[in-house]
C-alpha cells in the first residue's frame, strides 16, 4: 500500500515538472528535434546528469533499487527507430501525452488513444517478435559497469559532468 502511495506522489511530482517546464509543448519538442530550440535536450541532459550521479552514489551505499532493461540489440534498436518516428509525428512521448491530455490538449488525447492501440498491436505481434527480435543477440541486463569491469561511480562522475557541461555550456539554441 505504501508503495502505491509513493508511486502516486512521485508521479504527481513528475507530471507537475513536465507541465511547468513546457515539456508537453509541441514547439519545445519539435524545436528540439529540428535542432533549433534545445530546451528538451538540455532538460533531459541535466536530468540524466543529476540522476546518474544520484543513482551511483546510492549504489555506493547499496541503496539503489536499479532496474536495468535487457540489451537485445535488434528489438531495442528497431523499437527505438519506430518510437522516434512516432515521437516526431505526434510531438509527444508516452509520458508527456498523458500530462498534455490532463492539461486538456485534444491532440494529446488522440496520442493516448493511439498509444493504447499500439500497445495492443504489440501484444498481438509478441509471439513472433519474441522469437526473432528479442531472443536473438540478447545480452541481458548489462550496464557500462559490467562492460568495462570497474565500479560504476568512476564512469558516472565524468559522464554526469560531461552531460551537465553539454547542457549548461555547449548546446545553444539557433534560430533562422
Amino acid at each position, binding site marked *: 500500500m505504501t*508503495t502505491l502511495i509513493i*508511486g*502516486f506522489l*512521485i*508521479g504527481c*511530482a*513528475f507530471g507537475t515538472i513536465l*507541465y511547468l*517546464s*513546457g515539456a508537453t*509543448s509541441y*514547439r519545445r519538442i*519539435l524545436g528540439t528535434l*529540428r535542432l533549433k530550440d534545445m530546451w528538451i535536450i538540455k532538460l*533531459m541532459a*541535466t*536530468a*540524466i*546528469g543529476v540522476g*546518474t550521479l*544520484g543513482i551511483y552514489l546510492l549504489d555506493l551505499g547499496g*541503496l539503489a*533499487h536499479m*532496474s*536495468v532493461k*535487457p*540489451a537485445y540489440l535488434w528489438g531495442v*534498436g*528497431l*523499437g*527505438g*527507430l519506430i518510437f*522516434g*518516428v*512516432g*515521437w*516526431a*509525428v*505526434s*510531438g*509527444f*512521448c*508516452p*509520458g508527456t501525452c*498523458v*500530462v498534455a491530455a490532463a492539461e*486538456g490538449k485534444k*491532440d494529446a488525447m*488522440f496520442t*493516448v*488513444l*493511439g498509444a493504447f492501440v*499500439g*500497445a495492443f*498491436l504489440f*501484444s498481438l505481434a509478441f509471439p513472433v517478435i519474441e522469437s526473432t527480435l528479442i531472443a536473438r543477440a540478447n545480452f541481458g541486463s*548489462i*550496464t*557500462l559497469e559490467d562492460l568495462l569491469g570497474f565500479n560504476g561511480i568512476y*564512469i558516472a562522475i565524468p559522464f554526469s559532468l560531461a552531460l551537465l557541461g553539454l547542457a549548461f555550456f555547449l548546446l545553444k539554441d539557433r534560430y533562422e
Partner: protein
Amino acid sequence: MERDYIISWKVAGIALGLLLTLATALVQPLGVSTQFVVTDAVVAHKVAPEFAESNAYLSKYGEKEDWGVGYGWMLVLGMFVGGGVSAMLLRKRQPQEDKGSMPSMWQARFGDSVVKRNMAAFGGGVLLLFGARLAGGCTSGHMISGISQLAVSSFLFGVTAFGAAILMAHFLYRTRQG
C-alpha cells in the same frame, strides 16, 4: 522580454534528476510505457478473459488478483493528476504558444485541419507504444532512468530514437528547394 516558460529547463532538469534518485532509493526508477500494456491487459481480462489469458504478452500483466496495478500504474495516474492540477492552478502563467490543441508550428506547415492534426497525433501514438514495447521502454524508462543507470540497452535506444526522431522532424519540416 516576456518569459516564455514557467520554470526553466535547468530547474526542471535538476528536479527531475533528484526525483529519479528518490524513486530509485524508495522503490524503483521511473517508467511509463509498460502501464499502457497493463491498462490494455486489465481491460482485456474484463472484456475477453479467455483471449487475454491466451495472449503471451497480455497474460503477463493484469493478473486476476491485483490486476497488475502497482507502483508503476499509480505513478502514471499521479502524472495525470499532477499535470492536470498544476495546469488548472497555473494556466494563466503558461506561455500562449504552449496552450491549445493546435500547435502554431504544425498549423503553419500543415494547415488548419483539426482532423489532420488529430490523425497524426493518433498515428504517432500507435508508433510510440509499439516501438516502446518492442524496445522495452520509452523516454522516461529507457532514456532518463535507463541511461542514468548506465544501461547498455538504453544508450542504444537513446541513439536510435533520437536519430529517427530528428530525421523524421527534418523530413516533416523540409523546405522545398527551387
